[in-house]
């Protein structure tokens, strides 16, 4: 009861990047075509608009004077407890210590987005690279030689700086990702793919590091992510480094490892819309996909 074999999808992954034609946009059908035919009557639009007026008035009433009624309690509390966090930048203190759990889940959101994108893989990517090599283009090569090491150094510096100044893992990760994207589109680095185990390990490393540290301190301090006395600074720095690399890999992945939706994969056109959700026929060889289909 295996799925039908699918030779078409095998060649598709590499095809776009090797043939040099890049993306065939004609094949990428818009997912939700909107020609206005599904819009309701105009009166409905007006009714919704009229409903929104009291909502807006309510909001305006509520917000009136809200700006100067700022409750200073939490900022005061942060200032009071900042020395115990191991860092001197209040933002990092909140992100990695006071509300570290939220940050952990935010990185998990990134992982979820990446896995969701991977799961949409129908065997062909939208992202295509033109043929050729960077070293054949002197200007590109020179820019890369300047930009990439600078971005890398700055990212390391930002990670380090995060404990005392406005900076940190997310900024550093974004910068590293920029360098990664640059290297990929310049064809110096092969695009990372979901299939590569190192990519998965590094991308998962941010969340994994957080959870492992959180559980490891549990027996000593009695609470998840409660850093033991004197350990806060090194642990936060280590987590920031793991996060920066993980964020970078995830962002590069989201940029270059994007599948097309719905895929221009001809085997999917044979999927019975009322049949098995995974396109499996009753007998595995009842409707063999046509490998020669364009």
């Amino acid at each position, binding site marked *: 009861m295996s799925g039908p074999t699918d030779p078409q999808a095998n060649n598709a992954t590499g095809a776009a990047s090797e043939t040099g034609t890049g993306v065939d946009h004609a094949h990428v059908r818009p997912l939700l075509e909107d020609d206005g035919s599904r819009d309701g009557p105009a009166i409905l639009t007006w009714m919704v608009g009229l409903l929104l007026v009291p909502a807006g008035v309510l909001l305006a009433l*509520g917000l009136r004077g809200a700006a100067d009624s700022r409750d200073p309690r939490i900022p005061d509390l942060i200032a009071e407890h900042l020395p115990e966090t191991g860092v001197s930048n209040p933002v990092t203190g909140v992100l990695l210590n*006071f509300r570290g759990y939220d940050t952990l889940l935010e990185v998990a959101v990134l992982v979820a987005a990446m896995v969701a994108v991977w799961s949409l893989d129908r065997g062909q990517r939208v992202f295509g690279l033109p043929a050729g090599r960077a070293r054949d283009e002197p200007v590109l090569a020179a820019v890369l030689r300047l930009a990439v090491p600078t971005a890398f150094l700055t990212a390391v510096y930002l990670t380090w700086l995060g404990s005392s100044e406005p900076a940190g893992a997310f900024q550093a990760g974004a910068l590293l990702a920029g360098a990664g994207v640059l290297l990929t589109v310049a064809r110096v680095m092969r695009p990372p793919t979901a299939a590569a185990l190192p990519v998965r390990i590094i991308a998962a490393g941010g969340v994994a590091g957080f959870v492992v540290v959180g559980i490891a301190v549990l027996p000593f301090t009695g609470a998840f992510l409660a850093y033991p006395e004197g350990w806060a600074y090194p642990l936060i720095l280590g987590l920031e480094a793991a996060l920066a690399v993980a964020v970078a890999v995830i962002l590069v992945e989201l940029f270059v490892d994007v599948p097309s939706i719905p895929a221009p994969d001809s085997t999917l056109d044979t999927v019975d819309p009322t049949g098995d959700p*995974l396109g499996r026929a009753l007998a595995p060889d009842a409707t063999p996909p046509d490998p020669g289909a364009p």
Partner: protein
Amino acid sequence: MTGAELWTTAAVFGPLLAALVALGGRPWTLKAGLALGSGTALAGSLGLWVEVTRQGPVRHLLGGWGAPLGIELWADGFSVAMLTVTAVVGAAVSLYSLSYFGDLSELDAGASPAGRAARYFAPLWLLLWAALNGIYLSADLFNLYVSLEILGLAAAALVTLAVTPKATVAGMRYLIVSLVGSMLFLLGVALLYTEFGTLSLEELAAAAPAGPMAAASLALMTVGMAAKTALFPLHAWLPPAHAGAPAPASALLSAVVVKGSFFILVRLWFAVYGGASDGGLLLMGGLGAAAILWGSVLALRQRSLKRVIAYSTVAQLGYLFIMFPLLAPEGLGAGGASGPASPEWSDDAWTGGILLALSHALAKAAMFMAAGNMTYAVARDALRDISGVAHRLPMSFLAFGLGGLSLAGLPPSAGFVGKWLLLREAISAGGWFWVAIITIGGLLTIAYVLMVLRHALDLKASSGDFRPVPKRMEWAALLLALAAATLGVRATETFQILLQGGVTPWS
């Protein structure tokens, strides 16, 4: 470290770590991930059940700080009940998924849609599981929002594991609805924080939010969460998404995922806002009533098996909102007058309503898995295509029937006990409208369950083509259905846990 810290850690971070293990993409990492996630979730929820029964609601100060500076995990009876039913359903569906997606050793082919789905089902579901457990244990508004984002992303991706074009579009629409819902929630959170200067649910409850800002933020958050819960009239995304997804994903989405945003709605309306206003409660109940009628009638009109069950979810979710006005029975007579709701909460409506949520989770998961077995056997989803399948798959047929029995509210199912408690409350409060709705909804449920069963028994129209269904898939469906059908016998323990904290745990 006490039990509370240990079990809450297991419930949230066990499945999260398991998701990362499952990302390895090898057959053994998928199995190890599902085993680790199921084990930690079950251990965490059972451990918390014991702790909360023994000493009432418990908390875990993450990072050792405590609110308002830090974030707390917080478990009362409601949290524990939801955690437990999610763990039971999740473990059963995880087991089911090991067979549904086919031979895992063929993963490396990676090219077939089934292989790809097998590779990503486990990590997505485990991320979703961690987010759900995070929601049930959350006591912080922003933390709820972040958990919701993981929930929404992973849930939409579970739908698009199916390769049919319809499912892809349905999944995309689900994602958009889900994101809009989260944004509305975040806007409400921002307003509340501006006004009250805290994100802690407990502190907000103590501040007793009132006034235009509080009302506006409750309205925003309610619309957002109602869209995610598919409360009528924001339900249109649900049937194509839940019907189009692969069977294990359908079971999870219908049984446990929509309960996450329902949980948030209950927490906000009662624990934080103290019931808000009687008029608001009546409005929610009215939408629930409309959902019951509309969903049931549409379920009867469907021609495809999984769409019948998906519309049934729309209808059954309506019952959970009928609980809203019945919780404050003294407001029923006021007929929509606004003002603070009565502080006298009805224990009958509370235990009955939440018991319905729990039994719906068990029954709906069983029914979607049974339906998955039937469609798996014939590789088609139309009602006429499953003709005669009852003779080939008696266990799945029985599972579907038992699940339907619980949905319709026949004794001794938990559905019966839940509906009976709601009815008793409605009768004693003189809310005859609600009595009528609950009764009519039950009859309509019987009608669409029988409609499916009639097709499954129809041997004459059977085509005879049939694919054998792995026994594990049949057992998983049947065990959950049996749990749903007999939970009513052991309802007392559930009542005891639900009254730990009760409707307004922070008052």
